[in-house]
């Protein structure tokens, strides 16, 4: 125990003397949260629309005016030529084309099937999905009004209306900030934890002090615990700043228990630091360690469900996420913050994360060799 005390003392001194790292440790959470939370949004605004109205009926005009009124769309051009519209789409000047063919209005009046053609630029598939959904919902809306007006005027019993109602639980207004922020918090402590720990032991190898340590009777676990604890503190500190910003600047209600978040963060950090220390024991230079840490980091984050829903990944991708600590923590922290989930709700994922941390830490301890 006393040995660990001396290592801790040394590690903390070194962290606080590192003039290039210290500002990053403090500034990173604020910058990351403020930049990423606002910038990384899935919300679509100002979708550029090209309208080809070859029908010019009252129906097509009413639909177009609905698009005009919507904050999500900007009508760039209105024209008769579909050829010209397609050119604009090719040049990337518009995001989508809405095409009313001649006879659309007539078909609506005769209560026949009337069709509107929607052409969407799908280079960015996720954006295209959203354009499509937004456009369809505007048309759908018009459709329903039409049906209800038919009902009231003709009083035709036969028209059955099946109404879909939506209600978004836990994030009723489908705001993106409450959705993104917990994920970005996870990102924050992952970056700090993984990189600092991955660079740490290997740094002692580079400057040659590791040999001096290895020739002492220090136990491997003592050495690694002494390395772990400072990073857990830093991780907690980052999380604290993040939660304070979340509550007071972004005004996100934290429905669940903050203590529970910290408990999960503790176990999560053990996993991440275990991975970092493992990388550190396996490499010879900080450069190698950095490169490997970066490799895992990119995979963990892109697969984690922070930017893309995991549900839309292929099955093998979802299976890969069983080994992704970032995915677990993002899932859990969203549940606690947005849904107010309690200990029992997250127990299964937390158990997996705990096993993961035990595995990584024993791996790191095992791979750290005092004798070559």
């Amino acid at each position, binding site marked *: 125990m006393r040995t660990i005390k001396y*290592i801790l003392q040394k590690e903390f001194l070194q962290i606080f003397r590192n003039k290039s790292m210290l500002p990053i440790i403090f500034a990173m959470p604020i910058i990351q949260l403020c930049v990423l939370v606002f910038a990384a949004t899935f919300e679509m605004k100002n979708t550029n629309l090209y309208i080809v109205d070859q029908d010019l009926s009252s129906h097509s005009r009413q639909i177009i005016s609905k698009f005009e009124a919507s904050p999500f769309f900007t009508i760039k051009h209105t024209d008769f030529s579909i050829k010209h519209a397609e050119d604009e789409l090719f040049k990337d000047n518009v995001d989508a084309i809405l095409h009313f063919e001649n006879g659309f209005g007539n078909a609506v009046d005769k209560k026949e099937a009337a069709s509107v053609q929607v052409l969407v630029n799908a280079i960015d598939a996720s954006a295209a999905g959203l354009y499509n959904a937004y456009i369809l919902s505007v048309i759908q809306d018009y459709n329903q009004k039409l049906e209800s007006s038919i009902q009231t005027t003709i009083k035709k019993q036969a028209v059955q209306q099946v109404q879909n109602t939506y209600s978004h639980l836990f994030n009723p207004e489908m705001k993106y900030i409450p959705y993104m922020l917990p994920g970005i918090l996870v990102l924050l402590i992952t970056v700090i934890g993984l990189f600092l720990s991955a660079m740490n032991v290997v740094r002692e190898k580079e400057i*040659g002090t590791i*040999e*001096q340590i290895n*020739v*002492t*009777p220090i136990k491997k676990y003592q050495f690694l615990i002494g390395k772990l604890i400072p990073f857990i503190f830093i991780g907690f500190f980052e999380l604290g700043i993040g939660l304070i910003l979340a509550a007071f600047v972004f005004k996100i209600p934290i429905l669940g228990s903050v203590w529970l978040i910290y408990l999960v963060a503790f176990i999560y950090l053990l996993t991440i630091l275990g991975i970092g220390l493992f990388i550190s024991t396996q490499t010879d230079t900080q450069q190698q360690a950095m490169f490997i840490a970066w490799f895992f980091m990119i995979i963990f984050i892109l697969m984690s469900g922070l930017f893309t829903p995991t549900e839309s990944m292929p099955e093998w991708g979802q299976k890969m996420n069983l080994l992704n600590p970032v995915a677990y923590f993002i899932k859990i922290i969203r549940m606690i913050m947005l849904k107010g989930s309690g200990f029992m709700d997250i127990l299964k994922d937390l158990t997996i994360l705990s096993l993961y941390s035990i595995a990584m830490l024993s791996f790191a301890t095992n791979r750290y060799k005092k*004798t070559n």
Partner: protein
Amino acid sequence: MNTDKKVISVRNLYKRFGSFTANDDLSFDVYKGEIFGFLGANGAGKTTAMKILCGLSYPTSGEIMVAGLDVYKQREELKKNIGYMSQKFSLYEDLTVFENIRFYAGIYGMSSKEIKTKADELLQKLGLVHARNKRIGELPLGWKQKLAFSVAIFHNPGIVFLDEPTGGVDPVTRRQFWDLIYEASRAGITVFVTTHYMDEAEYCDRISIMVDGRIEALDTPEALKKHFKAKDMDEVFLQLARKSNYQE
């Protein structure tokens, strides 16, 4: 020098890296309190052998006892009884003189009171009291080396291993460094030192000269000079080193 008590005993030590034999059938004894010089050209296998004796590296085969402990089975126990100063400077540059002493002494299990008293005595002796709270990185190399040695014997080990401790320091500092080594030896610490400075070899009680992983000669400096009919150690060394297969 008490020749009765062996503190290091090596029999048929081999260390191979693939097809390369770094230590080829080494056998020697080191006695309590002596200064044992381990000489050889670069790449002769000095550091390899020393790392095995310190428990930093596994031997391929051979019987090796250090401080009465087996390097295979009692490696961690052995580490309590030895000090080591590596070729690479190994104090923390971003910590102060006292913080370095405290850290290393602390992990050898010394109490903080003991550390404080002994550190003050040491700094007094080295004339470094004014540098107590200076960062190691700010000190000149000679001071750093003396400090590194003092830290290596701070926990009072039975044996201290020094791997080319005077590399890159000026002759005056080297002389001062050897005064520290003598002092440690007088205090009963066995000193095992590698070097390729032949004048330093003269300061040792006994020396062994390694060529291509083998010990080619082992005796007191006087006996070696007599045997090789040489006027100084330099000549002894050159006669032996010419046998090397790896001469450039």
